[in-house]
Structures are given as C-alpha cells and as structure tokens.
C-alpha cells in the first residue's frame, strides 16, 4: 500500500503554533503571578521576620570591658594597676582548621609542644561563637613582628592590645592583695555572663577576689555594624563602661617592708592591726611569690615549683595557717577567768611545777619544771605560768571557756574582707560529740587553758584577740581596704563588743602583759630593752609534733621542720594602743626569744620617728589618765 503523501499545510501549522503561543502566554503570565505571590509573601507577609534577620546580621553588640579599679596602699603608693599588654587571640570560627593554625603559631614563634597544649586548652575554653580567645599573652616586639609577617598563614589570628593587671610591688602584697588570673570554666558558670562578656581575668585571691564586683566595674557596649566576615565597619551606638572602683588599702608599704625585714627571711607570718579601727597595717606571709606570674597565665613548670616547694610560698599563713595559739591565748583566758569570777587579781595558786586533777595521776606540767611557787594573775601572765591557767581553766569549765573564747573570735572568721580566711577551731562539748563521738574529758579543758589541745587559730585571729584586749573589748573586724572609692567598708555582720562586769579587768590583764615585756622576770623582757614606749605582749609556742608524757622537748633531737612554731602577740604603747602585732615564726621554737624581737622591730617601725623617738601623736595624754585609773 502506498504511503499517503504528506503535504505541508502552512495554515494548519500556523494555527497549531498560534495555539501554543497562546498557551505559552497564559503560562508565562501565570508563572509571573506565582513569582509575584512569592515576593509578596517574602516582602510583605514575612517582612518583619526578614527585616529582623537582616538587622541581626548587620548589627552586633560588642562588649567594652571596664577598666579595673586601682589599688593603693594607705599612703597612695600604687599596689595594683593596669598595664597595656599585647596578646595573641584567635577566633576558632574564622580560623578554619584551627588545630593546624595552632601548629603554625607554634612554628612561627618557635614555641614548645607544651605551649601548644596550653593554647589548645585555652581554645577549648572558648565561650560564645565568633568570640576571639586570647591564647598567648605578653607578646614581645619580635613576636608581634613575626605574627605580622606570617599573618597570611594565620587566619583568624590577631594581635590584640588589652589592659592587664600589674603589681608593681611584686611579692610584697601577694598574700593580702592577691592576684588575678584567667577566668576558668568553674568561675564562668557563676559569673554574670553579661557583665563579664568582655573580661578575661578575674580576681583569684585576696582583695582582688573579695572586692571583685567593686574593682571590676560595669561593662559597656558598642553596637557595631559588621560585614559578613565579622569586620567592624562603624559604630552605631556606644554605652560607656563604668570603670571599677579604686581601693585604698589600710596596709602601709613601709611597715610591710619593715615587717618582712624583721622576719629576716624566716618562714612565718606577721599581722599588724590598728586596734581602734581594725585596719590591717601590715600582713606578711613568708615566703611569698610574685603575683604578676599569675596574671597572664603561669607556666606549668613555674607553677609546680611554687606549689611543690617545701616552703609553701603559695600558702597564706596569716589567714589559713592554723596553729594552736599556745600561751598567746592566756590574756584572753585570764579575762574569762576574771569576768566569770573564778579568779581575782589577788587570788593565788601554788605551782609545784605541775598540775593534777583530783583523783587523776596525770601530771599537767608547767613549762618551768621547778615551779614558780605561789602565783597570782599578774605573775601568771608575766611568767606564762601554765599551772595557774590549768587551774583557771578547770574552774571555768569547757562551756564557759569556749563561750568566752568565741567572743574573742577564736573558731570563727574575724575579718571583714579577707576571702581565704580559715575559721580555726574552738572546741565545745557538742563539737567533740559530733566529730569524735566522745564525751568531753576534763583534762582537755586544762590544756585549752594554755592554748593547746584541739584549739586552732590563725595569726590573724590571735592579732584580733589581742586587739580586743588592747581595745577593751570593742570589736572592729580586721580589714585590708581602708576605703573603696572613698567609702569605708561596712561591717554587715558586726561582732558584739565584749562587755565585762568589771571593765577594770582589761587593765589588769594589760598590766600583766606589760610585765611580760618590762617585768624583772618577764619572759620577753629582752625584747623591750631600749623601748621608747611601754609594750604589752605575750609569747607562745605551737607544737608541731606532740611530745609524749614525761618526755622533754629536746631541740637537738627534733628535725628542723618539726620544731615548735614561735608565736608572739603584743600591742603598744600599752596605755594608748596604736598597733597590735601578731607574729608566727615557723619552727622558730621560742616565742619570746625569736618572735618577740620581730614584734618589737615592727612596733618601732610604726611608732618611732626618724630620730628614734615615739611619734608625738602616739605619746598621748591618755597615758596619765590610764595610770591614774590603774591606781
């Protein structure tokens, strides 16, 4: 069958195409309608949403860290300031393979693998996304130059200038002012994330820690326009930060140096207080360390050296060193005995060289084995007679003794603004039952009377207990900050003053303490030779290793580090107390022989003028009045 011949029908073709053109036109119009609908949806219905999105893209809020408050000593000498420093910071999100970039940094700056480990740790602590994390501080000129030259290999890495804490006095105030360090992850959880958004360092110890909120200030803000790469193009709005408050310390750099000199390189602690105000004039814990090391991150090696040193330079002996107060507590115990009426100024105790409880064989020995014979209060303090105080403590009983000692601040934190302070321990019946599940034994009361046994106190607490004797029971919590931005720190939790039934008891004990220094048989009379003023003092020893019954302390047999700690507390001038000093010399053995001269030197430094005479303002007319009252 022949195929039908196809003839091209142009009319038909044209019609066909025209039909398709019409269809195409309709489709085009319909689809453009779809596009317009879509754009209407985006630009009208979702306008708010996209508008916000685009604004958030563009506007970033950048924190401006406030400048930290400065710290001065009481004379205006700068103790802590802020110094510009260049640090290397890295933004993980902009670095791409940041691990590799770290390698390049280590290579460019010729650092060690240990440094790299630290960098990596710091990077992992990074906080918000796109936030630069400082990884290396205190860049030298050369390091900055090397970074600049290799910038092309270091995406997301920049050299940033910032203010870092600096302690121009070095080790002098390491234990009082403390130091700052990088915010760690634990601190991060408790900090206000807004206020600390631009801050990398925080006070770790001491004043820096205690007054952190005041010193830090309030963060400021900058609303900046950034491009997609986070580069800041212009500032839209700025809220200035409120700088931290300046702090003036009650510490005196000269007295501090004098105290350190008086300790003469021995391990130990010194606190000097103004009893009338509670201001701490000097605070020494020796050995000390350079707080500047910690500010920008201490190397692991340097830190372990400090930490593992047998001399424990990081240990704050003033606030955390717990020692049995030994005989230094006797003035306070004497006040307790007088006020409770178990002794009077004239009542006497016979001392055969030991004390025995009725029906007990055990002999509680006086330090002077031969005994002092009949002893009254004045002599008891002067001679530091243990037998008298065994008797006193026995008559007083643990409950009253404990209550009185608590009034003197033993077993609790006494300071106003010292962060690390340890409360120490003043045992009670309840305490023993709770911790040892044992009843209280009468013998334990006796040894508390001479400051031994469970009792533990810090050099600061001993200073405060002594200050209370000097100040006749008026409580002023010891504090390091004289003023914060011109205002005196407030005591939110004041201790009640010690009110005695007979206020002249204070004078009686004061007199006994003067006898220690100036009496013919005073235990520390050598320390008062040539003094331009009357000193009231009391020595003590804190045992490091217990001595068995009947055994004698023989220094030749005891290792140096196991020797007793020498303690001494005192105030001067005795009739117009201006300064209270508490000294602890580690393994110094003799309170009166080793610690007392230290106290004397510090008092001299504070009370005497250049010519070696008592400063006029301290030789007050009160002395006449005081002697009159004494009679």
């Amino acid at each position, binding site marked *: 069958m022949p195929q039908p011949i196809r003839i091209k029908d142009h009319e038909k073709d044209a019609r066909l195409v025209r039909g398709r053109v019409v269809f195409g036109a309709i489709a*085009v119009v319909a689809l453009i309608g779809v*596009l317009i609908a879509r*754009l209407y949806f985006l630009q009208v219905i979702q306008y708010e949403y996209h508008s916000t999105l685009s604004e958030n893209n563009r506007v970033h809020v950048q924190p401006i860290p406030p400048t930290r408050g400065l710290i001065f000593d009481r004379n205006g000498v700068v103790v802590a300031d802020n110094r510009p420093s260049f640090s290397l910071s890295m933004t993980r999100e902009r670095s791409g393979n940041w691990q590799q970039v770290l390698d390049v940094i280590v290579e460019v700056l010729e650092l060690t693998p240990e440094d790299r480990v630290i960098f990596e740790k710091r990077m992992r602590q990074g906080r918000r996304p796109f936030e630069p994390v400082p990884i290396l501080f205190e860049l030298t000129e050369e390091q900055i130059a090397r970074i600049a030259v290799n910038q092309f290999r270091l995406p997301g890495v920049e050299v940033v200038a910032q203010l870092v804490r600096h302690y121009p006095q070095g080790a002098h105030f390491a234990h009082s002012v403390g130091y700052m360090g990088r915010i760690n992850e634990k601190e991060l959880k408790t900090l206000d994330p807004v206020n600390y958004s631009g801050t990398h360092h925080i006070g770790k110890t001491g004043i820096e820690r205690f007054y952190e909120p005041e010193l830090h200030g309030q963060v400021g803000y900058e609303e900046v326009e950034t491009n997609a790469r986070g580069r800041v193009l212009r500032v839209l709005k700025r809220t200035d930060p409120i700088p931290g408050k300046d702090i003036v310390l009650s510490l005196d750099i000269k007295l501090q140096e004098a105290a350190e000199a008086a300790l003469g390189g021995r391990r130990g602690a010194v606190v000097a207080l103004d009893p009338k105000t509670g201001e701490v004039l000097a605070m020494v814990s020796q050995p000390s360390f350079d707080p500047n090391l910690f500010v920008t991150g201490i190397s692991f090696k340097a830190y372990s050296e400090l930490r593992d040193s047998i001399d424990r330079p990081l240990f704050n002996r003033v606030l955390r060193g717990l020692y049995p107060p030994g005989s230094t507590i006797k003035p306070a115990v004497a006040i307790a005995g007088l006020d409770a009426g178990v002794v009077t100024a004239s009542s006497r105790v016979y001392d055969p060289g030991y004390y025995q409880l009725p029906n007990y064989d055990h002999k509680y020995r006086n330090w002077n084995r031969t005994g002092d014979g009949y002893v009254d209060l004045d002599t008891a303090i002067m001679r530091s007679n243990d037998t008298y105080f065994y008797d006193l403590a026995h008559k007083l009983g643990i409950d009253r003794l404990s209550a009185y000692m608590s009034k003197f601040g033993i077993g609790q934190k006494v300071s106003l603004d010292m962060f690390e302070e340890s409360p120490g321990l003043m045992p009670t019946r309840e305490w023993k039952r709770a911790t040892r599940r044992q009843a209280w034994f009468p013998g334990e009361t006796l040894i508390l009377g001479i400051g031994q046994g469970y009792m533990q106190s810090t050099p600061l607490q001993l200073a405060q207990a002594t200050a209370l004797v000097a100040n006749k029971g008026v409580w002023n919590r010891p504090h390091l900050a004289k003023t914060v931005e011109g205002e005196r720190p407030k005591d939110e939790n004041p201790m009640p003053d010690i009110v005695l039934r007979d206020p002249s008891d204070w004078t009686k004990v004061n007199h006994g303490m003067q006898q220690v220094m100036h009496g013919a048989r005073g235990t520390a009379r050598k320390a008062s030779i040539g003094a331009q003023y009357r000193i009231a003092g009391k020595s003590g020893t804190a045992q490091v290793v217990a001595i068995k019954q009947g055994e004698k302390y023989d220094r030749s047999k005891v290792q140096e580090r196991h020797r007793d700690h020498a303690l001494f507390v005192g105030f001067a001038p005795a009739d117009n107390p201006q300064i209270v000093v508490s000294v602890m010399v580690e393994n110094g053995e003799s309170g009166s022989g080793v610690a007392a001269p230290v106290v004397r030197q510090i008092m001299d430094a504070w009370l005497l003028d250049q010519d070696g005479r008592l400063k006029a303002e301290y030789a007050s007319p009160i002395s006449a009045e005081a002697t009159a009252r004494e009679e």
Partner: protein
Amino acid sequence: MKSNFDRILSSEDVMRRRATLLQRMHIDGPLLILLLTLAAGSLFVLYSASGKSWDLLAKQTTSFGIGLVSMIVIAQFEPRFMARWVPVGYVIGVLLLVVVDVMGHNAMGATRWINIPGVIRFQPSEFMKILMPATIAWYLAKRSLPPQLKHVGISLFLIGLPFILIVRQPDLGTSLLILAGGAFVLFMGGLRWRWILSVIAAAVPVSVAMWYFVMHDYQKQRVLTFLDPESDPLGTGWNIIQSKAAIGSGGVFGKGWLLGTQSHLDFLPESHTDFIIAVLGEEFGLVGICALLLIYLLLIGRGLVITAQAQTLFGKLLAGSLTMTFFVYVFVNIGMVSGLLPVVGVPLPFISYGGTSLVTLLSAFGVLMSIHTHRKWIAQV
C-alpha cells in the same frame, strides 16, 4: 474582496514602516527600547551590587555594547540563511563541547571553557543556547506538524547529545536551559499533549535515577539545601537564607538605592551575578521587582507576537522557543533566589554581571529581530 496586494499598497502602516531607519536596519523598535531600558536599569542595580565598582560597570557596559553589535549583525541575516547554516553550526558546537569535555580548562571547579591563550576564551555551551533551538526548529520545520514519534525521537537525540556533554562539564544550569531551548521547539511545534504529560509522568522515576547515578555531590547538596536551607545555615544554606532575608527586608518600597545592608556588608553571596535580584529586592522592594517583571513580561509578549507573526515555520518555532527559554531564565533565577526552586547557576537576564551571557542573550534577540524584520510583505495576512 480586496486582494492582499491591494491591502498592502493601501496600508499607511506599511508606508511609514518602510520609511523608518530602524526598519531598514532590521531592528525591532519595541524590543530595542525594552532592552535599552533594562540595560540602563541594570547598571544602577549592578553599581550597587558590585559595591560601587566603576570598573565592573565599565566592563558590563562594554559587553552590552558588544552584545548590541552582535544583535544588529545577526538581525541582518535572513532566517532562511540561518536555517541553511544551523546544521553546520550544530555539528561544530557539539565538536567543541567534545573538545571541552576532553581537554577543557578548569574554571570555577567546572570545565566549561575553550581557551586559546591570547586569542579567545569562550564557553561553547553558550552558542548552544541559540543553536539548540535553531537546530530543532530547522529539523522540524521540514516535517509535518504535529511531529511524529520518529521525528520527536530524532529531535530528542539532537537535544540529548549536547545536553549530556554540558551536564558532564558539569553545568546544570546551562544544560537545563539548552534542554528547555530544544524542548520548547517541540512544544511550539505542537507536540502532542499526551506525550508531554507522559514525559512529565516519567520525569519522577528518571529524576530518582539521576539522583543516584548522574548528579554530583555538590548538585545533590544544592537540592538538599533547597529542601531545608536551615539545616546548614553557615554552609550551603547560607545563600538562600541570606537572599531571602535580603528580599524580605526590602519590604514594599525597599531600603533605597545603595542602602541595602545585606549586599553592601557582604552577607549576600554572588550579589552581582546570580543573586542580583536580591539586591534589587532589598533596595527597591516589591515595587522594584514588579517593575522589572513588567519589562520582562513586555519583552516576552513582544517575542510571542513575533512568533505569531513569523511567516516561516522555522521562524515561528525558533522565535517561540527563544522567547519561552528567555522566560525560563527569568523564572528559574527569581525562583531560586526567592527560595522557590533549587539553586542552579542561572543568571538573571540583562541584570546579572557577565559578558558572555549578555552577548548570547542579545544575539538571541537579534535572531528574533531577524525573524520579524525579514518578513515578506506579500505574504502578510
């Protein structure tokens, strides 16, 4: 009943047209006005999108000039002449694509260029954008319409060859445009509806197969990101999120010229090329985009009028296909930037920066003008 001849002679219209310079230069007035308007507008948008780069503007203007020359030159050729040389062009084009496939240079991670250093550097696939529909139109114009299955098959083969070569480059955007260019000829040629519908029905299993066997990872990623841009907001989803934010934040009237933060602060990627509509949307708002769409609609309308008025079947098929393909450009680009379609590399015609695309587009309009201005008056009904 008047003869056609009388009607032509008595027509004032014809008399006037003959007199015009444009007519003698084979230039279509409405198309030219619309194209110049677009070009002028595009320079404003481009100036903003490029971050006030005069350099870029100068290059774009130059390209536009070259494109205009190319358009005018092409308009001088009679469609008949074109039809004669189309098969040769097609063969050369396919050969060049093979050359690119074998030894092409790497540019933008995809091999698309022929580069004879110091002489010429171009993308053969660009030529195919015009040659493809022209070839199919040439082929179908000789057959009876609607095309028979056999002719459809041969047409599909002619389309498929360059399509596959371009997909392999890989350049999904261009290959789809070339596919569209060829397919629209078949459509204009009256391809039976039931075949069209069956192809659409078959597209589902085919696309599934493509997903597993043909598509590159980055193409798959684009599709995945299209389906859920938020899944990777800093990576591949970034483009879409940012372009939507740019358009959306423009609102009805826009943020004002040069005041678009998304583009000026570099949040918007490729802001002067494929994503330039987002800049327009951000700075001129819904009003600005609608104005642009109106110009496009007028251009397409004129193209369809030319299609309807074309005297030869070759002219009809080619003009129709070029016009519809032009619309595909517009729709796919705006669709992808506004998040309706996946991101495929299709520039916004006449607005996006890029010389090659501009020259190709203007050449296509040259073809349209040629079809329209070389009509024989005698045959006009």
